[in-house]
C-alpha cells in the first residue's frame, strides 16, 4: 500500500509519496501553494509532477497545513513570567504561532490589537488552581464586550474556568475548558491545552478557514509545525538521545528541542518556570524570504556580512556583495532562488544568522550569582550544550550545497553563557580534532520530508521510523568527504 502525504506550506505545496510495505520513499514533488484560489489547484500541480502510475494504489492520504500564516494564536495570562509564559509554551507546542501574548487585565488597546490580528484561536489562562480568579473572569467578559468571536480554550484557574466559560458561551464560536497550564506556581502543565488546541483546529478552525473540504478529501490532520514536531519526537524515541531540530523557513525559523535540559555542570541552580521536555519556539522575524528584512533588523547587516565571509571565505576574490540588496530582492520575489555563487553565499549567510539567533532565543542561559558560599551559576531555560543530535530542515538548508557548514557556523555563539548546542568542534571549518564519538552529530532532512514522516508516525509508526532513518543524512559523513580529519578514525 502507498501513502500520499501532503504539506500545504506558506510558499510551496509539497507532496511525498511513500510505500508502506516495505517502507520506502517513492518520490516527492512541489508546486506553489494556491492560497488565493483553491488549495487543491496547487496540490494538483504538484501531483502532476509525479508519474501517473505512481499514484496507483494510494491507500492512505494525510495532510498538514501552514498556509495563510499558519495557526494564529493569541495567548492571555496573568503574570508575564508565569501563566503568560506557560500559555505561550502550550500554544507553540500545539504548532501555533503566538502573534501576541497579554498579561493582567486586557486594556482597550490590547483588545483592539486582538481584533486586528483576527486570531484563529485564543488561549485564555491566568491564576493557579484555587488562586487568583478575578483577572481571567474580567478578560473573558472583556472579550465578549469587544465582540471577539474566535474560539477560546480556557486553561486557567480551575476555580474560575467554568464561570469564564459561561460568560463566553454562545458569544464566541466555541469554548473548550481544559487543564490549567500552570496549576501551581512553577508547575507547567501544557499537554491538556495542546490537545484542546488540536481538537479545535480539527473541529473549528479548518472550517472557518474554508479548509473543511480539504480536510474531508485529504485528511488534514494538523498544522505543519506539529507534524515536524512529531517526527522529532519519533527520532528522540528511536535514538533514546536528546534531539534538537532546526527548521529555517521563509517566514519563520522554528526550533524544537526534545530534551530535559537540566544543568550540565555542578553548582548550578535552576530558576524560572520549568521547561517542557518537548519545547518549540517560533521566531516570526527570522526567515530567508518573507522575514528577510526583519532578519536584517534583528541581527544587523554587519553581522550578516561577517557570516558571509564565514560561509564562503574565498568570496573576497569575487567582490563581496551587499547582503542588504539580496535581502530586499528575495523579500520582493519570494519564489526566487539564488542564481550565482554570490547569491548562494548571501542565502547561506542568512540561514546561518537564522540558526544562530533562533537557537540563542530557544536555549537557556547562565548568570553568575555571588553568595557567601562563593560563586553560583543560575540557569534559566534549557541547557542544550550536551546535545548529541541536531537535525536541520527547511528549504534553504535542504537545498544548500554545504548544509553542514551552515549548521555548524550557526552553532557558534558569541556569548559562552548561552546554553545552545556546542559546535562539533571549535573553530569550524578547519580541523575536526575535538569531535569525538560523543560529540554533536549533525543530520539533514535530505528529502525534506520530516512533516510527512510526522503525519505518518501517528498511523504507521514503524514505517515512519524506517523512512526517518532513510531520510536523515549524517552530515559528518559529508564533512569526511570534504577531507576533514576526524580524531580516532
Amino acid at each position, binding site marked *: 500500500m502507498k501513502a500520499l502525504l501532503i504539506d500545504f506550506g506558506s510558499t510551496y505545496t509539497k507532496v511525498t509519496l511513500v510505500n508502506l510495505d516495505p517502507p520506502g520513499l517513492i518520490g516527492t514533488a512541489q508546486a506553489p501553494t494556491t492560497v488565493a484560489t483553491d488549495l487543491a489547484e496547487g496540490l494538483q500541480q504538484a501531483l502532476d509532477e509525479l508519474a501517473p502510475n505512481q499514484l496507483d494504489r494510494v491507500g492512505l492520504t494525510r495532510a498538514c497545513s501552514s498556509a495563510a500564516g499558519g495557526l494564529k494564536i493569541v495567548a492571555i495570562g*496573568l503574570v508575564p*513570567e508565569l501563566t503568560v509564559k506557560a500559555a505561550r509554551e502550550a500554544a507553540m507546542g500545539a504548532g501555533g504561532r503566538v502573534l501576541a501574548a497579554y498579561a493582567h487585565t486586557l486594556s482597550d488597546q490590547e483588545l483592539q490589537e486582538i481584533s486586528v490580528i483576527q486570531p484563529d484561536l485564543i488561549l485564555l489562562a491566568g491564576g493557579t488552581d*484555587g*488562586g487568583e480568579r478575578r483577572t481571567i473572569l474580567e478578560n473573558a467578559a472583556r472579550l465578549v464586550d469587544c465582540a471577539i468571536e474566535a474560539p477560546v480554550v480556557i486553561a486557567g484557574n480551575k476555580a474560575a474556568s467554568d464561570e469564564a466559560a459561561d460568560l463566553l458561551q454562545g458569544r464566541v464560536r466555541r469554548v473548550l475548558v481544559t487543564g490549567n497550564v500552570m496549576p*501551581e*506556581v512553577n508547575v507547567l502543565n501544557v499537554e491538556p491545552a495542546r490537545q484542546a488546541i488540536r481538537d479545535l483546529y480539527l473541529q473549528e478552525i479548518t472550517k472557518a478557514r474554508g479548509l473543511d473540504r480539504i480536510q474531508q478529501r485529504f485528511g488534514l490532520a494538523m498544522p505543519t509545525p506539529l507534524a515536524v514536531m512529531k517526527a522529532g519526537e519519533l527520532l528522540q524515541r528511536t535514538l533514546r538521545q536528546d534531539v534538537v531540530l532546526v527548521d529555517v523557513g521563509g517566514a519563520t525559523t522554528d526550533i524544537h528541542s526534545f530534551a530535559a535540559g537540566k544543568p550540565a555542570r555542578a553548582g548550578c541552580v535552576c530558576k524560572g518556570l520549568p521547561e517542557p521536555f518537548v519545547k518549540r519556539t517560533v521566531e516570526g522575524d527570522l526567515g530567508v524570504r518573507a522575514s528577510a528584512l526583519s532578519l536584517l533588523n534583528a541581527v544587523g547587516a554587519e553581522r550578516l556580512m561577517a557570516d558571509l565571509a564565514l560561509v564562503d571565505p574565498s568570496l573576497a576574490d569575487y567582490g563581496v556583495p551587499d547582503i542588504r540588496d539580496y535581502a530586499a530582492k528575495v523579500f520582493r520575489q519570494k519564489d526566487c532562488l539564488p542564481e550565482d555563487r554570490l547569491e548562494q553565499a548571501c542565502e547561506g549567510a542568512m540561514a546561518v544568522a537564522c540558526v544562530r539567533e533562533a537557537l540563542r532565543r530557544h536555549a537557556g542561559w547562565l548568570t553568575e550569582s555571588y553568595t557567601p558560599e562563593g560563586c553560583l551559576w543560575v540557569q534559566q531555560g534549557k541547557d542544550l550544550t550536551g546535545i548529541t543530535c541536531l537535525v536541520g530542515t527547511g528549504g534553504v538548508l535542504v537545498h544548500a550545497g554545504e548544509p553542514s557548514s551552515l549548521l555548524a557556523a550557526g552553532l557558534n555563539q558569541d556569548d559562552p553563557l548561552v546554553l545552545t548546542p556546542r559546535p562539533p568542534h571549535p573553530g569550524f571549518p578547519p580541523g575536526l580534532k575535538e569531535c569525538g564519538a560523543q560529540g554533536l552529530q549533525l543530520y539533514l532532512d535530505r528529502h525534506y520530508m520530516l512533516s510527512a514522516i510526522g503525519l505518518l508516525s501517528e498511523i504507521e509508526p514503524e514505517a515512519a521510523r524506517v523512512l526517518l532513518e532513510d531520510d536523515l543524512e549524517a552530515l559528518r559523513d559529508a564533512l569526511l568527504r570534504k577531507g576533514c580529519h576526524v580524531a580516532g578514525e
Partner: protein
Amino acid sequence: MVGQKRTVVLGVIGADVHAVANKILDLSISQAGFKVVNLGVMVSQEEFINAAVESDAGAILISSLYGHGEMDCRGLREKCVEAGIGDILLYAGGNLVVGKRTFDEVGRLFRSMGYNRVYPPGTMPEVAIADLQKDLGL
C-alpha cells in the same frame, strides 16, 4: 478546598542558599492547614510577588540567614503596591542583619520597611503560624 486567603508564599530571599529552615517551615505551615507555595532558595522580590499574584496569597513569608536580609528585603512593600497586592501580609525572619544591633532595632527597621511581622533567629514555626491565623482572621 483551600480557602483563598489560606495560601502563603514562602522562600529564602536574595543569594541565600540555606534550605533547612525553609523545609521545616513548609512542613509546619502546611500541617497547620495552609496552602504553601514554596519557592525554595535564592528567590528574588519579583518571584515572591509573581507567585503571590498568581496564587492570590494572603501572606509572603521571607527567610534570610546570611545577614543580607536588610538589603534584600528593602523595597518589597513598594513593589507589592505597584503590583496591586499592596495589602498583602509580609513576614520576615532569621538572621536579618549584620552588625551589633538589638532585635528591637531590627524589628523597628523592618516595620518601617512595611513588614507586618519580624522574627529573630530561633523562633519556632508555631509562633508565626499563630500570627498568620490571627492576622488573616482565621
